[in-house]
């Protein structure tokens, strides 16, 4: 049944030292840039300089402002099927040829402050009520596209597994090495779903098979694909991009 096996040609951890070295080289080049004249461009969140620390603390302040602006009832605009962007753009932290198939024996794990930690199969997830949305996916890079997803409202899923809804965070871990997290208010938003279908078809690997998060009230990188585990937690979850300096809340 599972014809798509995970056979990555290059693993991230294998090339990590080289990547770090490249980043350092880019950092050195940037200190010679225009901002460097003002001794600023070295401040790119990669160092422990005073300015980087100031930028990070302002980002944390911005997160509080964003959480205050967020309303659990305000819905992202929805569009007619004719507005769906085709072809839909692939995006991940790796190129499309490194997309991984569903691992053998995959189950969606649940952990943390939940009363029922039984892992979920796709068939079990499909027995839950499904909703469809046609919403705009807005990338942190600025581009956007309209897509059609359907799946289980995360709120309903969290209730079903007996999650402590007063816990501040929901953390997502993916089998492609990605991770991200949500504040509980955003996790409980009615348009936040565990998507099983994309454009009327079960998710293909490049769109996050077998289940992905879809949250139109956040920037695209918060909609983690290829989910492996969901954890309801009191520990700040960070995330793949968030740990490198992308704003954690990233609400839209």
């Amino acid at each position: 049944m599972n014809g798509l096996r995970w056979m990555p040609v290059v693993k991230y951890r294998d090339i990590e030292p080289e990547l770090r070295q490249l980043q350092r080289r880019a950092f050195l080049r940037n200190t010679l840039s225009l901002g460097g004249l003002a001794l600023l461009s070295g401040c790119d969140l990669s160092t422990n300089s005073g300015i980087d620390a100031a930028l990070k603390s302002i980002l944390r302040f911005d997160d509080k402002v964003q959480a205050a602006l967020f309303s659990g009832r305000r819905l992202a605009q929805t569009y007619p099927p004719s507005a769906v962007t085709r072809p839909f753009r692939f995006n991940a932290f790796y190129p499309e040829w490194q997309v991984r198939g569903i691992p053998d024996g995959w189950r969606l794990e649940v952990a943390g402050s939940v009363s029922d930690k039984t892992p979920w199969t796709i068939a079990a997830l499909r027995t839950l009520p499904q909703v469809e949305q046609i919403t705009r996916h807005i990338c942190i890079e600025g581009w956007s596209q309209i897509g059609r997803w359907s799946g289980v409202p995360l709120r309903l899923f969290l209730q079903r597994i007996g999650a402590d809804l007063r816990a501040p965070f929901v953390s997502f871990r993916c089998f492609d090495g990605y991770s991200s997290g949500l504040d509980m208010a955003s996790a409980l938003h009615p348009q936040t779903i565990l998507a099983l279908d994309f454009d009327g078809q079960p998710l293909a690997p490049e769109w996050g098979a077998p289940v992905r998060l879809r949250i139109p009230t956040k920037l695209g990188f918060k909609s983690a694909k290829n989910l492996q585990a969901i954890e309801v937690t009191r520990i700040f979850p960070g995330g793949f991009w968030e740990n490198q300096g992308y704003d954690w809340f990233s609400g839209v």
Partner: protein
Amino acid sequence: MPLHHQPTRTAAHPAIVRLLHWVWVYAIGCMVFSGWQIYNASPSLPFNFPRWTGLGGWLGGALAWHFSAMWLLALAGIAYLAYGFTSGHFRRDLGVPRPRAVVRDLWSALRFRLGHRIGHYNAVQRLLYLGVIGALLLQVVTGLAIWKPVQLSALVSLFGGYPIARDIHLTTMFLIVAFVIVHVVLVAIFPRTLISMIAGTPAEPQNPI
């Protein structure tokens, strides 16, 4: 009355305006150069800004700069608007010029016959300063719209949707940069205006004949 008999001559630019001017130089510089770095992550026009002009080193760093400097820009803007309305600065110095006066002053300026008197604004200056204030306000509003297209959805609809609001944000940046270029060229032609924006140089007589 000859002006040198005047008992007091007020500064061409009050201290608050001079202070805010330099805060803006820094804040707008941060916003523009980090904005160029953000643009480079996904250019919507067929060009990139040169890498060396970017602030922040990469998209994440640039966004951190953009979402930090925005507070400085907004606070300086609010302080300036409050000062401008309460002190009479807008009424006195920045009244909307009549089109005929703009044409007249522009024609004089292009023949290098328009005197520049520190502390007084001719019709072309008024038009440019009002224009850049308007552009900065539009930039803040489009910036809010594309920062929060869901939470502030009314704002984004006002501009015709997220992609259009983003294009307006980019276009307005070009207008602001064009103003800065004209502004800096004029300061280079009249260097004493630079001094008047640092020290409290007295205003020059309005109509020295």
